[in-house]
């Protein structure tokens, strides 16, 4: 199955997605958009795990379970991050990272 698509295509696609997320992480100044870039990065890593599992070790399931746990960690991370963002908004009335600098020395 899937012999029509080489493994490299999946890896290159995941690489492009990963570095698009890195670009967003570097340029964005709003906390929620930074969180969205992190989600992109996590997703591209999941694609890699599953492609490696299916193409190189088809008899095992490590990649499948690893991406399952990555998804669970991403969900927990998003919940806590959004709680923190809402708390920051309540205190500073903005979620721009350049204006939230009260603890900066």
């Amino acid at each position: 199955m899937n012999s029509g698509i080489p493994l490299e295509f999946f890896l290159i696609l995941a690489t492009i997605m990963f570095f698009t997320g890195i670009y967003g992480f570097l340029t964005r100044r709003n906390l929620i958009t930074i969180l969205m870039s992190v989600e992109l990065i996590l997703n591209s890593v999941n694609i890699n795990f599953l492609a490696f599992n299916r193409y190189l070790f088809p008899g095992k399931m490590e990649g499948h379970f690893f991406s399952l746990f990555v998804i669970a960690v991403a969900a927990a991370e998003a919940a806590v991050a959004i709680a923190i963002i809402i708390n920051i908004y309540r205190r500073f009335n903005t979620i721009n990272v350049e204006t939230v600098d009260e603890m900066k020395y």
Partner: protein
Amino acid sequence: MEGSQIMFAIFALVIIIFSVFTVTSRKILRAAVSLLFVLIATAGLYFLLNYQFLAAVQITLYAGGIVVLIIFSILLTSQISHKFEAVEWKKSIFSVLASAFGAVVVITTILRHTFEADQAIAAEVNMNLIGKSLLSTGHDGYVLPFEVISILLVAAMIGAIAIAKKGSPHKDLKNNN
């Protein structure tokens, strides 16, 4: 061209276009909606790889849960009509250079390496097998990470409630004592 190749091309195109749109769009709600498209196309890739369970998890948890959470917090914290200022050209150029350099390094490494496939017969990943592996303590069992992840989820839930609770934390401490 086979059907699966055509589907892969479509998913790849959707993922690349909408992930670029996610990080460059100057309206925050549009960025969130294009993130949703990226996540759904990723679920399509999982279907192509024959991981039906994980594709379903991806759709329900990411597209159904996280994106809705993100859109909720956007509605709570931002003006929808507000447009971000354009990124300074200096920062933009340096970020593009950094990420393009990283992408070129990784892609050349991928293309120069030859991958050797395991000759094992492909195991069908069905619900029965997933449930048994998640709760078994044997050689292919994942019961320890499963328990750790449940503790993490409980801790994240309690932490999120405690952080987002109304009122200043100092006042609460005084009341409790």
